[in-house]
């Protein structure tokens, strides 16, 4: 945003991929799914779930993708920036782009029109499309409520309680209205529409869950419809299969319903797909369906109603937990699907996995009070995960439980260790693990005016095999309500804020050491300084930011500012504070030791910043500019009011990304295939390694991930990989425990043995 400063706020992944209906297309061998994601069009492989290409170029939200009807390897995309672009999505190349004259066609605030835009056939790449004629006025902004009929002869659109059908040839419009109120109080407003590809039949979905099939709609009076009812809530989307044999419908129930057009009473179901279904699309050959869900997920379903692939984006529903970084995978952890925690890899822009915390079936129905994950915290090493789930927040009878999860190395996932039901009398507000390595300790604060300390230990009574958690200490202070708690970086001190008072406790003896008080106003956030600044404790109230020196137990400095969010970087002394100022959020980076900020940026984003987190970098940057040094070791991610995940990117980083992209680009002059890139690179690196010295510690078993070859193998989309038989030796080699002497022999001629796989699946050595 602020270019000259060399640092800019960028959107970092997690875009909504289910915003608009995707399309499925196919080249000679592989099937692709294209979907609009923010201002990009992403091309996924339906078999590997990998993102194959990203079509970049739009400057606004992409509002629709459609296959070129004359070439199934090309795609048109339209965007809120007022352009239509034609892409070759196999190579990811922009072929043409059309500039629509009036921008309001795409983003008119209330009154939407359906217009026919003539795309002129001219050789230039950049074309202005001027010819435009309005087809229907006042249509719904939802593209699902407009559909083209058989062979493009008519277009059907629904709005409110009216279905409008416009015949292009006869230039005639027919309108059919439903009664405003049925006797039974049915909500019969239209929600979506679909047209049969072969017959003249229009299917409409309604708010009360009914589906109506309209026929004879070229008659003013003698039109007719039949009604089907399965959905208990509004029908979200409708789609006919390519041949018109089936009608697919979906809604809040998250069940894909396949209706048989011939036998209306027969229907098939595919339940438990995830969130509410917002779009359904069918591949041109009718073999694959895809359902887009509101929880940012696309399911690819074989036409026999078997789930074949899942493309999951970052789930941005209700977020109650903090943003956290899993210390092991460096994945971003937050609320995912209802009752789950999602682990999202920010580097790959992909969900790693979703951990079921509540372990209860979620019922897809509005207005139900179901368990939700409210708080979560990781221990320092990432071995322990504490979660709090709650139900009955609105009603008085609160049910909550504190769960502690341990990481199982073998299973590579978290396992439930202890469940404490009703850990506190009231809602748990905050919790944190002790950073000290000797003891595993968790502190929770709750509205019942207590904070509790939980310790891991062997239960002496039951003589159980494994250690479990139990309450060690219950603390309170003058019957005040505790809000925040925070451990010092060595874990020796615990700070708990009780309204306006900050209390400091010794974590060994649970003795109240001192109290700090700086009225007016209750303490909002509490945070210890790190590393060299660990003697400082930072606290915020609605008006001020305070810094106490714990050695002197006195206020070091304070500054009047409305801090809405305060976080310290675990890898440096830096602390970041977000402050809301006249509708925009400003960012301040400072060290507790000096009140002067290291870096400030006004108006980072509009609205209040909801959550933020520091994520440690894999490789530290070496930025020389003093102002950006705070970004060297960690990256700051933050979530805005509009649920956009943003981060800061420096110029150097941008350049690096650009370079890496250029490297990947295939130069046409040299016959460089991805295969060559893969093997060539592998070879180079191996050589480098040899040069740099082979005497690295070989006694440790190298986990498979470490091998670059494997990484390349696993991360390259399957359809661009060479035959598996060819890669086999490389793969086997990388798994072998390297013995320096023998390795040299092997490495010298890695491909001297022609390999081929036998018919029975065994690998045969053919001999030289």
């Amino acid at each position: 945003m602020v270019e000259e400063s060399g640092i800019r706020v960028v959107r970092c992944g997690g875009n909504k991929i289910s915003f608009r209906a995707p399309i499925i297309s196919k080249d000679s061998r592989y099937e692709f799914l294209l979907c609009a994601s923010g201002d990009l069009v992403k091309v996924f492989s339906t078999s590997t779930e990998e993102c194959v290409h990203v079509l970049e170029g739009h400057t606004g939200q992409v509002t629709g993708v459609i296959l070129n009807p004359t070439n199934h390897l090309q795609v048109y995309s339209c965007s809120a920036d007022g352009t239509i672009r034609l892409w070759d999505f196999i190579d990811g190349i922009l072929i043409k782009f059309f500039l629509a004259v009036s921008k309001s066609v795409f983003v008119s605030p209330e009154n939407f029109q359906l217009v026919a835009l003539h795309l002129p056939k001219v050789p230039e790449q950049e074309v202005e499309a001027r010819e435009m004629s309005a087809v229907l006025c006042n249509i719904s902004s939802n593209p699902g409520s407009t559909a083209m009929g058989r062979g493009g002869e008519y277009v059907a659109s629904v709005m409110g309680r009216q279905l409008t059908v416009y015949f292009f040839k006869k230039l005639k419009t027919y309108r059919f209205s439903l009664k405003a109120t049925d006797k039974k109080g049915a909500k019969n407003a239209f929600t979506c529409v679909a047209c049969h590809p072969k017959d003249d039949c229009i299917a409409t979905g309604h708010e009360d869950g009914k589906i109506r099939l309209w026929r004879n709609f070229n008659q003013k009076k003698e039109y007719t419809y039949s009604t089907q009812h399965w959905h208990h809530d509004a029908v979200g989307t409708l789609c006919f299969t390519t041949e018109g044999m089936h009608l697919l419908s979906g809604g809040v129930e998250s069940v894909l319903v396949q209706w048989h057009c011939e036998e209306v009473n027969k229907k098939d179901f595919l339940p438990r797909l995830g969130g509410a279904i917002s779009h359904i699309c069918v591949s041109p050959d009718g073999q694959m369906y895809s359902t887009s869900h509101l929880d940012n997920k696309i399911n690819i379903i074989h036409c026999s109603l078997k789930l074949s692939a899942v493309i999951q984006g970052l789930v941005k529903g209700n977020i109650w937990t903090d943003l956290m970084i899993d210390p092991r995978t460096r994945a971003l952890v937050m609320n995912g699907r209802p009752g789950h925690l999602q682990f999202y890899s920010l580097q790959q822009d992909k969900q790693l996995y979703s951990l079921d915390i509540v372990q209860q079936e979620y019922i897809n129905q509005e207005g139900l009070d179901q368990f939700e994950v409210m708080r979560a915290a990781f221990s320092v090493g990432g071995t322990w995960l504490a979660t709090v789930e709650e139900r009955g927040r609105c009603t008085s009878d609160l049910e909550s439980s504190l769960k502690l999860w341990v990481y199982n190395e073998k299973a590579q996932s978290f396992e439930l260790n202890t469940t404490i039901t009703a850990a506190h009398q009231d809602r748990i507000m905050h919790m944190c693990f002790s950073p000290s390595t000797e003891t595993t300790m968790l502190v929770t604060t709750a509205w019942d005016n207590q904070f509790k300390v939980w310790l891991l230990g062997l239960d002496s009574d039951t003589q159980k095999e494994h250690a479990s958690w139990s309450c060690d200490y219950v603390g309170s202070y003058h019957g005040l309500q505790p809000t925040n708690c925070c451990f010092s970086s060595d874990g020796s001190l615990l700070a708990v804020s009780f309204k306006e008072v900050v209390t400091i406790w010794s974590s060994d003896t649970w003795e109240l050491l001192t109290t700090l008080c700086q009225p007016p106003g209750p303490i909002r956030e509490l945070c210890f300084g790190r590393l060299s600044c660990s003697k400082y404790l930072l606290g915020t109230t609605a008006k001020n930011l305070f810094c106490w020196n714990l050695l002197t137990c006195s206020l070091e400095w304070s500054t009047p500012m409305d801090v809405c969010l305060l976080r310290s970087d675990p890898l440096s002394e830096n602390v970041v504070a977000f402050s809301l100022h006249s509708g925009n959020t400003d960012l301040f980076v400072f060290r507790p030791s000096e009140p002067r900020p290291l870096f400030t940026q006004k108006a980072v984003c509009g609205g209040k910043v909801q959550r933020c987190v520091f994520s440690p970098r894999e490789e530290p940057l070496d930025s020389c500019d003093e102002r950006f040094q705070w970004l060297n070791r960690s990256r700051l991610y933050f979530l805005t009011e509009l649920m956009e995940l943003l981060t800061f990117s420096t110029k150097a980083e941008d350049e690096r990304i650009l370079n890496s992209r250029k490297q990947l680009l295939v130069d046409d002059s040299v016959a460089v295939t991805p295969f060559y890139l893969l093997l060539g690179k592998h070879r180079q690196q191996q050589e480098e390694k040899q040069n740099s010295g082979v005497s690295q510690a070989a006694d440790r078993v190298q986990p498979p991930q470490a091998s670059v070859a494997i990484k390349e193998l696993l991360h390259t989309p399957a359809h661009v990989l060479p035959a598996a038989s060819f890669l086999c030796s490389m793969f086997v080699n990388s798994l072998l425990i390297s013995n320096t002497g023998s390795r040299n022999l092997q490495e010298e001629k890695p491909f001297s043995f022609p390999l081929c796989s036998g018919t029975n699946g065994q690998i045969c050595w053919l001999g030289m």
Partner: protein
Amino acid sequence: MGEFNVHRVRFFDYMPSAIRALAFQPQRERIAVARTDGTVEIFNRADCFFQEKVIPGRQQAATEALAWVGDRLFSAGLNGEIIEYDLDNNKTKYTIDAYGGPIWSITSNKQGTHLAVGCEDGTVKLFEVHEDRIQFERNLAKQKGRIISLSWHPSGSKIVAGMMDVIHIFDTETGKLRALAFPSYDLLGTSRSQECVVWSVVYLSDGTIISGDSAGKVKMWDSRTGTLIKSHQVTKWDVLTLSVSQDETSLAVGTSEGHVVQFQFLSMVLGQEDKEWVRTRTFKNHTHDVRAVLEVNTAIVSGGMDTQFVVRPLLDKIDERGQASALRNIQFPHRRLVSCARKAGLLLFQYPGHLELWRLGESEGNGERKRENTTLSIKRKRWIAYSTVASFRLYRLHCENNNVSIIKVSKLPKVLSSANQICFSSDSSHLFVASTCSSVHVAILNQSGCKFVCTLKPKSGSGQAINLLAASEDGKWLASANSDHEVQIYNLNKMKPHCTVPVHSSGVSAMAIHPTTNNLFMVHADQQLTEYSVEKKQYTDWSRQVQRHGLHSLWLERDTPVTNVTFNPKNPAHIVLHDMYMFCIIDQTLPLPDQRSQFYNQLTLRSMPEKERKKHSHAFKMCKIFKELLFVELMEDQSLVVVERPLMDITAQLPAPVRQKKFAT
């Protein structure tokens, strides 16, 4: 409008019987309804589905099917007999035994020359229709198993019969089986061991046969090749009845779930000729089996086990909103089943097989149980008269303290054999008995017995039966209305016809002569109100004013006819009317309601100050606080007798419907 003491009567256990068959006569737009108790009712489609005639029958007849041949109506039942009805006099004309065991179906060909009946013994019997009788012509090739359903091809040369598991086509010329078209009715989805009953077949003019069966399927067959074109699974239970519209573009299907499903013959691609039968609408107006369904040009008429007669209009065929576009649900008969002695406070309830006499004011009731069959009865003061299909009875009633006794009057004049309507004069001195051909017999009652005086005959010479009689309070006038919509007024002093009221297009559903002004007040089936001055032989000014001004649309949109008219003895300007859902007092002194004014305005009037009320009040005072009404009468002592029959009580007595999964159960 005043307050009344109300006798709320709920002990009349009126129970309508289930509808078994329907038949439509397109030329005269009459619908015949056969009920399981043997009754046949005739509804007039053109006259707001008014129940014009009720022909009592016997339960043993077990009527299974009805057929119109021109204006003549035939029925056949499981007792093996074919009945022709005398529609003029509301009785059975003659009965013929078909000698084939129980008859399951009867249909006539389009030409009106033949009747075909399907019998239990596997024969289809053809009867030739003559002027006055029907004559057996021949048996078509006998099959194994019963013939459940029949349908003629519109050309009349072929007939299709639905049986157990099989559909056969017969050639009516030769009587032979025309190629075994469907050797085995393919039961897709049902096990072989289970029999599949073809409950209904329809033969279309293009050679398509449509069948509905007990497997819940509607199947379309090609009759030339005997192949299945399409099969629709309509229900999990039975498809009981089919009916195709006259232009063969629409098909109504009745199922045992209580649904009526419509199929339409539509082109799949607009503007092309290829058409297919597509399932379109589903109507869920019944709770029990739909045993009969009819496609009547603009509406689908259905009836079944739940005793309702439902008229579901097809809105795409109706041009404007109005009476024709409203859903009609006929549950109660369009005539009075209760007779009331206003001075003595006695109520007489008419059941199909007996009468019950109740006295008001006390909680005890006295039952007068008779095994008799039907027709009307009227009681006034000390007499009870009733008539069955076969005979006429008169009783003298003694009512002292709590002892009620009746004495049969033995010697009755021979001419009083059977009656359509009975009426006493207000002083109990005369008895009026409506007989055949719109004639009314007059008899004098005295201590010794009953003496025949004369027979009053209308000038028009109409042959229709009288369905309403009304005598004036002063004993001078008698009015009779017949099902030709004619209203005759007789002068009882001269025993001569006095005049004829101009014929209104709609039948009279209730009428009465005003006690003081001697104006005949009539309510018609189309909800129009007329008042005719008997003495002046012309419509009264008020009646003319009503015609000029027009009635309020809410009044005209009511779907049940008024079945009783009485007058307030204290206030001659008040007329009390009631239909099934409301009772109403019309104040002739107040202005008629405007089209824009609020029709149901009692509540708003009550909230207004006294002075303003006058400005806003109008002639119609409606009261809807009661349950479904069978009878309302204003007694001498200004108390109101209200006979309610809540529909809930009727549905509670019905057998359990087929089990259906309800959402969230």
